[in-house]
């Protein structure tokens, strides 16, 4: 091992662990605002740290939120009200335990690691609904129901896209998956699964054409309506953590992870590859309005399902040819 520290410790604390998650929160919010501003004839954040292009603006915002009053509404169960967003944020970050960012840089190497990560990602929707339910507000209620329905729309395609890749590689071990892509990336071998995964990612992180549970003109902020202060950071930031996890998972599943490097360089390559998933997710905000929930369901169970089934079929064909 050519790493200064033991790899799993780096994975836990730096990348893809704690520091990576919080750092991504700051950078992603900044990047999103900057990119979208570019499209919209604006500059985006510039007031805080002008030389850095306003990079510290999200930090300032987060600090401001940390030091603003913590209101726990009386009609809710206050303990659950405070605990729900913490658990949600934590649970969104949990799948990184099983995903490797570079050889050795993984907290828990496991032969079915990526499959477990996928399942963990899908489980989190339960917590969003629980959070919305705890808030006990009409808007969070509608938001929670929409979250359930949106989950129903993307779960099967996401699972099928993962299934297609697992059939193709014959394993769910992060090392095995990356090794199988040493000649050709998964995105090239099975572009259908890649596209299906990308769309499912947009749905799972409620990015723009599917930003339905927190549609502002109808349900204010959806499941996060009642929150303020630090709890709002968690409730609102949880989606960014999910984006982080799914981008990391996607770069390992489809883009060959840390290849062609290893060690510390591999970590940086993984980071760059994550941009392939993160940038589209940021830019769709500038391009698309949002669908209605019924349209999202129709897409999920229509075109997206067909696409992901075709992806599995393609993988089966590849597998039988080999």
């Amino acid at each position, binding site marked *: 091992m050519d790493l200064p520290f033991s790899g799993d410790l780096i994975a836990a604390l730096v990348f893809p662990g704690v520091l990576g998650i919080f750092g991504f929160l700051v950078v992603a919010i900044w990047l999103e605002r900057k990119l979208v501003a570019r499209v919209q004839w604006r500059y985006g954040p510039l007031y805080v740290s002008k030389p850095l292009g306003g990079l510290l603006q999200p930090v300032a915002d987060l600090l401001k939120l940390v030091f603003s009053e913590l209101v726990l509404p009386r009609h809710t169960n206050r303990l659950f009200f405070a605990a729900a967003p913490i658990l949600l944020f934590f649970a969104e970050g949990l799948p990184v335990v099983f995903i490797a960012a570079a050889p050795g840089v993984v907290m828990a190497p496991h032969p079915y690691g990526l499959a477990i990560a996928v399942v963990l990602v899908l489980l989190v929707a339960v917590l969003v609904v629980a959070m919305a339910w705890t808030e006990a507000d*009409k808007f969070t209620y*509608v938001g929670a129901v929409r979250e359930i329905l949106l989950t129903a729309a993307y779960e099967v395609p996401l699972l099928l896209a993962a299934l297609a890749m697992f059939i193709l590689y014959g394993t769910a071990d992060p090392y095995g998956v990356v090794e199988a892509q040493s000649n050709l990336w998964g995105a090239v071998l099975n572009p259908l699964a890649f596209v299906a995964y990308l769309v499912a990612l947009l749905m799972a992180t409620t990015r723009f054409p599917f930003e339905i549970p927190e549609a502002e003109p109808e349900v204010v902020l959806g499941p996060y309506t009642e929150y303020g202060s630090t709890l709002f950071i968690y409730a609102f930031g949880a989606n960014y953590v999910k984006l982080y996890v799914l981008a990391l998972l996607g770069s390992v599943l489809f883009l060959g992870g840390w290849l062609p490097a290893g060690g510390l360089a591999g970590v940086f390559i993984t980071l760059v590859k994550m941009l392939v998933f993160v940038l589209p997710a940021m830019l769709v905000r500038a391009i698309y309005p949002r669908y209605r929930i019924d349209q999202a369901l129709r897409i999920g169970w229509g075109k997206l399902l067909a696409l992901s089934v075709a992806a599995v079929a393609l993988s089966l064909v590849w597998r039988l040819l080999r």
Partner: protein
Amino acid sequence: MQRTEWPFNLEVGNTFFVESEEELRGGRRGLTLVVGPQHPGSGHMRLFVVLDGDMIVDVVPDPGFVHRGIEKLAENRPYWTVLPLVEKASIMDSMNIMYPLVLALEKALGLEPPPRAKYLRTIMAELTRIRTHLYDMALLGIFLGHSTAFMWGFALMDLYAEVFAKITGTRTTIAYPVPGGVRRDVKPEHVEAIRRLLEVSRRKLKDFKTLFLDNPVTRARLEGVGTLDVKRVTELGVVGPFARASGVDYDVRKIHPYDAYSEVDFEVVTEKAGDAWARTWVRWREIHVSMSIVEQLLKNLPGGDVIDEALLFKNPEYRREGVGGVLGVYTYMYPEPGEYMAVTEATRGATLVHLWTTGTQRIYRMRFVTPSWRNLHAMVEAMKGHRLADMPAVYMSFGYFPPEADR
């Protein structure tokens, strides 16, 4: 808190919206969503939306949050100070919304603007029409979640504000027309500025259309939503582009041409479908019609004064002096006693001003009917039976502007 305080008398039998689950037809259960006033999708109003699952069963509007009593205020002040007051009803549409009052006052005072003033007023009316349509499009964009349409729409509106500032001295509430003329004459560079403005907007609007109106998601959100057919639209008394979107071929500019409208060649834009998309598309086409009207008027812009000769009896220099001098002249003029009425086509529909004057400089009574108020009922009717997500789409497809409705 007393249960009778809010929102209405909640005693049994006195509610006008669904209170309990059993009240819905067929024993369906409902959730009353209170949308507004502190809600990102309501504007300055409140909507009680009764939901059955995701379907809107009933909508009860509660307007009046920005009621300023413009009609009552107008009774207590000299008639020349009513002009900027009326304008505030709809600041984006400032020229069009005060147009009928100016026309009515002209009838009362026996003034006739010179041809150049008529042309200039019509040009400004069409420019504010474009700006208001852009404003409504931008808000439709953000209501559907398209922030780029919102930003681009507002950026384009700012170009119009800049040109208005050059010509009239103010960006938004331009108060350009006065009885018997306009406040300021345009200079050649202003004409050039308007030409350039139209050229730039044409170019930018093409991008706007590509990204927003041609967007498959936008189309999916608007098509077939909030449909009102011709019969329903006429029953509900809808005016303006929203009636024309259902096939009502009525435009005050064509039927009762005022000022320079009789001298330009333009089509009345109509659509058949009557859904949210048709209402959006009609307004989009109207932007282009307005541009062609402005261009025609600029080409034939006559020379001469911009103030009626009758206003120059105190001092002939007033024709050049601008607003201060002319407004001073009004203090010597008294409207003839009687009733005067004028209707114009504002951006969101026909606007009516009905004046009762008794011979003093104070107006006895002013009736002021604005298009948003006429369209409110139809908007609410169009929402019923659709999904909750269609509520903002229908709302902004009617370009509903609460300050304009509440007056």
